[in-house]
């Protein structure tokens, strides 16, 4: 089945048709979601308006996690089946996931300060997200850490795979650590109970974020595929139009 996607030119044709619909979905959902989230949805009875940060924070966190799972799957496909697009997809996903993870951390801090009085708390979820952020950085560091770029593809894929196994263990240990070190957890699990007036903008923003994520990953994959084609051309000996000595 995945042979279907193995051809880069087919990939380009399919993604070309996807881009415009995705852009429309992403922008429309974002506009409605932002309008509802910022102006229509109610302020929380405890947190006031700061709860509105949820409409950025939750999609960002979700996509950061989604990206990490995607990275792991790409790693699996590349190591086990040597699927050519898997490496390209992984290298495209990593920076996007990193930005979303960082966005999660920043919006988390900006939400935390008015809510808990501190810019950073060593809460289980924030800490896990921080580790995920480091993990993304590590992936990009290995993937690009060798003089020959392709040399880094498989170690990076291996790391992504190890991460897929290990990051849940890390998450578990951090949750454990958190419950022991902060028995009176300030962040009730799940946050405020989600009411329908908040759920709608949240879902819209999630859809928009997914679409946006896909758009950017497609763009980056295209860039990478084009770069690789160009690199191959550069290796080919130049054919001159005039007569050469050997032909």
């Amino acid at each position, binding site marked *: 089945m995945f042979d279907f996607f193995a051809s880069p030119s087919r990939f380009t044709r399919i993604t070309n048709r996807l881009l415009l619909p995705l852009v429309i979905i992403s922008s429309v959902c974002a506009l409605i979601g932002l309008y509802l989230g910022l102006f229509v949805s109610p302020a929380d009875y405890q947190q006031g308006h700061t709860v509105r940060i949820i409409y950025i924070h939750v999609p960002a966190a979700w996509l950061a996690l989604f990206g990490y799972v995607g990275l792991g799957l790409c790693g699996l496909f590349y*190591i086990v089946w040597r699927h050519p697009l898997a490496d390209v997809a992984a290298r495209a996903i990593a920076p996007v996931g990193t930005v979303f993870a960082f966005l999660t951390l920043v919006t988390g801090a900006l939400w935390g300060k008015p809510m808990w009085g501190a810019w950073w708390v060593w809460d289980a979820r924030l800490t896990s997200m921080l580790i995920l952020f480091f993990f993304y950085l*590590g992936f990009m560091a290995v993937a690009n*850490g060798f003089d020959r770029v392709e040399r880094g593809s498989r170690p990076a894929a*291996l790391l992504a795979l190890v991460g897929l196994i290990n990051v849940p263990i*890390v998450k578990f240990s*951090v949750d454990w650590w958190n419950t022991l070190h902060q028995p009176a957890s300030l962040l009730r699990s799940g946050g405020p109970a989600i009411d329908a007036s908040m759920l709608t903008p949240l879902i819209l923003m999630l859809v928009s974020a997914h679409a946006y994520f896909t758009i950017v990953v497609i763009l980056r994959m295209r860039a990478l595929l084009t770069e690789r084609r160009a690199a191959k051309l550069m290796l080919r000996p130049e054919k001159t139009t005039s007569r050469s000595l050997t032909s």
Partner: protein
Amino acid sequence: MIPFFAQIERDLLIAWRNRQDLGVMLIFFVIIISLFPLAIGSNTAILDPLAVPIIWIAALLSILAGFDRLFAQDVSDGWLDQVSLSQLGLGWYALAKAISHWLSAGLPLLIMTPMMALMLNISVSQFPPLMVALLFGSMGLTLLGVIGAALAEGARRGAALMALLILPLTVPLLIFGTLASQSETGVISPHLMLLGAVFLVLLAISPLVAATALEIGETETGL
């Protein structure tokens, strides 16, 4: 089986011939531990609760330092190629490396720990949980180091890269290790069980991952 032990013996012999490296590592361990009180201040009310974590962090950094060069010598003199073609295979080779590295670095560090613990005013009754936890922790860190060294082998900035790769993965060892060290219920505690579990997972995956990574490096060197 014999090649496996021969590999361990070889690495131990090489480590013995370079035994000043061990001294350097142990001094590094002591210095890091000493830096904490210097930075925190001698107020024992603040320092004492931090004693166990300080030892763990110092142990972590000391064990992982220099790991990036673990396979470098064997790669450059062709030994790795021989191993991959031999009966031993890269997986057992990686495990052998982990064992010999722990024997030549982790174990001495463990032996030095009681002295450091006294310096940090840890009560002697806390030594058994601390030592057992560090036993598993040091072995786990060694296995993680082998993974990192294999992944980063041949990379530019190998040491920094290795640290970036491995440090997030050391978190469970650090968390369960420090909790197990501070156990109030004697040596055996739920945290020790969890630490042991993480160690076993690492024991299972480390040789496999390292072998795969080394093989990648092997087939792609040159050019």
